[in-house]
């Protein structure tokens, strides 16, 4: 050994040190990882496009060993427009609790998704890395900008079935009872008219009327190229109607089919928008919207009064006007 190291005891010591440091460094990392606490939280609620949202990573390390290189891998994406991978390296200081604030600047609306994938710890010599699974999923709605419509559209209501229709064996029913008849096998127990049945010997069931309502029906026909404008128009129109104390419906087409969502206040409008951000997450550029055709098929071409929001315009079917 002396010949190899050329009579250099300090070099020998340094080489021994390097050999010793490797497992020691790894040991320290393995000892410290279980006690480190890392948590990701939303730092802000829903924001408007153009404002900054935020993610907060809370880090706590009660051990005396500082972990200088903790690496969090996460994906940041807008549900409607895609995203990219990120990596943030931070230190978990010994005996301390801290926060790392990640502001996310927004420009367009959508659901801002923070999807953490893994956490990697590197040892002191930056040679070994230990990756542990780390799941954190945060959604922050980014609402469209509150714009005002250039001019107030002339709108007409559409005749649509009431939400309170109840299905029965014979078809769709409403709350309005058309007649009371004898029980037939297959009738639902909830349709039994118990009061009258108790008075007689036979079991009587209720048969309902179909009911129809009249309200504003909004149909957002979202296409990638006009996404933001259409969402802003929808939001502006929705707010306008609410300001007039006019509830309305918005038709959504998801994988399950058509769904009409009732909006009666701002909260419901915001919830609706959040749903839309997820429902239309698959929207792709260059693909035209077929929503109107689907809507017409569903309502047997009875679309009078429908308010379409399409390609940056608001089209009022009732008046054949565009805004």
């Amino acid at each position, binding site marked *: *050994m*002396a*010949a190899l*190291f*050329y*009579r*250099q*005891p*300090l070099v020998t*010591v*340094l080489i*021994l*040190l390097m050999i010793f440091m490797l497992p020691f460094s790894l040991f320290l990392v393995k000892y410290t990882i279980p*006690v*480190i*606490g*890392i*948590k990701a939280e939303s*730092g*802000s609620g829903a924001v408007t496009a153009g404002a*900054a949202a*935020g993610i*907060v990573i*809370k880090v*706590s390390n009660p051990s005396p060993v*500082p972990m*200088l*290189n903790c690496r969090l891998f996460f994906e*940041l994406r*807008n549900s*409607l*427009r*895609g*995203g*990219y*991978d*990120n*990596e*943030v*390296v*931070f*230190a978990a*200081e*010994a005996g301390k*609790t801290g*926060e790392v*604030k*990640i*502001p*996310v*600047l*927004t*420009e367009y609306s*959508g659901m*801002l998704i923070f999807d953490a994938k893994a956490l990697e710890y590197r040892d*002191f*010599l*930056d*040679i070994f890395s230990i990756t542990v699974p780390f799941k954190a999923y945060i959604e922050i709605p*980014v609402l469209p900008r509150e714009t005002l419509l250039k001019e107030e559209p002339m709108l007409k209501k559409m005749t649509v079935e009431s939400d309170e229709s109840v299905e029965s064996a014979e078809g769709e029913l409403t709350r309005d009872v058309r007649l009371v008849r004898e029980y037939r096998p297959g009738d639902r127990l909830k349709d039994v008219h118990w009061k009258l049945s108790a008075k007689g010997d036979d079991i009587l069931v209720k048969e309902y009327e179909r009911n129809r309502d009249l309200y504003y029906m909004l149909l957002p026909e979202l296409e990638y190229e006009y996404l933001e404008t259409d969402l802003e128009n929808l939001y502006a129109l929705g707010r306008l109607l609410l300001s007039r104390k006019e509830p309305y419906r918005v038709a959504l087409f998801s994988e399950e089919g058509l769904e009409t969502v009732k909006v009666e206040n701002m909260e419901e409008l915001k919830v609706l928008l959040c749903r839309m951000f997820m429902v239309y997450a698959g929207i792709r550029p260059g693909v035209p919207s077929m929503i109107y055709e689907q809507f017409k098929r569903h309502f047997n071409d009875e679309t009078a009064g429908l308010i379409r929001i399409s390609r940056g315009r608001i089209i009022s079917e009732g008046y054949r006007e565009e805004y």
Partner: protein
Amino acid sequence: MAFSGVKKLKKEKLSKERKKELKLREEELNAFGMTVGDISTDRTPNRFYLCFIRALLIFMAVFGMTGGLVSSFDLPFSVIGVAAVVFVLSLFSAFLYYNKISFYIGYVVVFLGFVVFSARGYWYINSGYQAFSNEVFNAYSDYFGLLSVREATEFITDRYLTVTAMMIFMGWFFSIILNIAISGYMSLAATFIITFLPLQAAFYIDRIPPMPYLILLIAVYVSVAILGRAGHFTLPYRHEAAEEFERRRKRKKRGGKQETGFASHSYLASSGGMMRISIYSMIFSTAFMLVTAGLFSSLSSRYVSNRTKDLTDRYIKAAVQGGIYSLFNRYQGTGGLSEGRLGGMGNVSPDFNDDLTLRFVPLSSSTIYLKGYEGAVYTKDRFAPITGKKPDDPMMPYDGIAAKMWIGNIDAGNYDFLPYYSYYSGSRSAASRRGISDEMQVKGKEAYPDTLSMLDPGAYREALENSNSFKSVNEVLYTPFDLKAEFPDNPEVTEEYEDFVYDNYLNVPDEIAGDLDLFLLENGISFNNALYGRGAYESGDLEKEKLDRQHTLAAAADIYKTYVNDFEYTMSPGLTPSDQDTVVYFLTKQKRGFCAHFASSGALLLRRLGIPSRYIEGYAVGFTDIEEGEAADAKVSDYLMGDDIPDLAGVVEVNVTDASAHGWVEIWLDGYGWIPYEMTPPSEEDTAATSLYDFFAGLLYRTGRNTGDNNRGENSRGNVNGGSKGNLLNLLDSFSFISGPLAWTVLLFAVIFAALRSYAFIKKSFGIRSKEREGNLGEALLIRYRSAAAGLKRKNITGYDNPTFRDMQGFVDEWISKGEVRVEVSAGRYVNGEYKEYRFRRPARRYSAPEMDKAGADYLFNTLNKAAYSPMSISTDDYAGCIKLLKRLKAKRKLF
């Protein structure tokens, strides 16, 4: 919690990186509708602390290296003094990176301080370095068993003082270099190379520095390795002020689809983390070194020889003996003869081993020249011998004394080294009689038959010649030469021989003749060939011949005087550039050299004057060599014969080392013959440096071989090796010479530090004054407001990062109405992601409401609102009134 995302910066402050980052963000916003902004943490970066820790690392590296190195050679120095000064210097160096202003101005200050310190302490530093060099050379000489001892002159002999000064100087230098390596790059490789290599001077000869210094070094290596690998050392100032996280971006494809961005944000250093790593490294290295301490003694005690080691040992020995430049000599120069080769040896480094052993009777204190090599034909870099047969030199006239000399060749070159004027060799083998031809032997035997009786018996000669101690042995008879004022006529000099001399020993290459003539002209050296040259007078005109010889010697003396006055003798003159003629370069530019330079140029100058001369190499045995010899058990009559033998003559045996190898000139004296002539002036003391380069070079320049002769003893305390540490007063007094520069440096550092700390205050005040002068009272008021709001935020009274006026007004109104505000101290912390409360809670802090009523607060915030939208419309009265209110908007703690 409000996220601002992008910290506001003035447009003109945007760096190239920042602009690029903002542009990329814009692209991401357009593509994805979102992008990551300026990541931050809840910690408050502490630049001061960060710089302090770096200073600590620099100090550990510098002090570990310099202290360890000097201690290895048992040199005395003030440990506390050096440690304190090096620590201050390390602090200064580390704080150069505090911000951009300190970075640019600080280096100027560092340089000026360095120059001032070097100027004030020039001789102390120089003497300290020489003391260190002397100890190193002594140690190497002892270790390798070298006989030569290079010694440098220590002008100030108090080593405690001078070594301390030298260590401060080196510490200053290394702290600047290591500052770049540690503060700038946290590079283990650079730190290791800078600190480890100098220590090799000790390790190579198994000198182990004291353990504390090694611990410091190991601790630094571990810290720098960890912090450098983790990237955990940079300060935000090197990035835009907004950026706490450094970012790197790449684009990568995801699943073959369109490119997606990838951004990596790396955390910049935290001072707390760095301090922990440094402390842990220190503890770890201490423990590790204590455990492995045994390795040092076990490894160093086992000598191992191998080919690589022997090779490097050889170079180390040459470098120790001859200096670094000796490694670049174009041919061997460890004393001995160079066989006429000139200019390719930048440094002569004798090994002081015995080359010859002589036994003879010295007749006077004059130098005895033993001629070996004769150079006749000059080219650019060599004086070569005459090829082919040449006639013997004429036999020299008997001067009343004949002598005998035994010459044993131990390690000299394969020449016959013969004294002037040898005429007979008693050696049996013909090979030993090379220097004396058979014809000369016959002539000598005939001319001085009686002297042959001095020769030793054959059996004795044979025994000596067969001895294993010598390569060869020569027994010669000679008529001793003595430089006289007058030389008699020598009938042995024939006209044919003189023709031969004038034909072969006057040649000078045409390309240098002009330079030689110019040199002779400039220095007023001449020889009247018309009167005394060949053919100027009739042969046999003894009077003219006498004058001829006198003038010849006078011309030679003039050349010698010029050398004495204008040239310098040194054994380290440096190499002659390969495109230059050695003699011309020496005479016109170099003006310093050793014997070969003086002898070769002297011979050519004489030839140019018309005086035949030749270049000789051999050994010059001086009187000091003779004095160091031993009295031989032999009879004087066996070594000396003739008239006027001195009464106190005795036979001496002298060992001649390669340090006595020498070069001189032989001058032809018409009608007499060849005489040896010394052209090399004696060595002189070094003069003080004049140019700035010389100034710093002179700090560390070795001042020659002589020891003790040139000690001036300025401020000497009579402690040769600095053994006395004295009391505190002596210690303080000993630093009086550096008190000025040191105090100046510390004061400057304090001023800069104070200025940096008050930078924000100065900047704010300057900004306010500037706005006031412009008449922009609204902006000035807003600056004051922001300062007041920041003060409240620092104490956690408000939780707003960038409060609006409305927010702040609401808060102040509430504060006034309640009369106080309570600031709760954190009650717990997160452990494993869960919040846990402390066991003992500290009480909340209470602050009194500002001294204003609601009307005042309304007035203040209305004015501030007005200032925000229309800064130029604020009147002087409003401005003054708001200043008074803002001054009251301060947090006064309520203790009861």
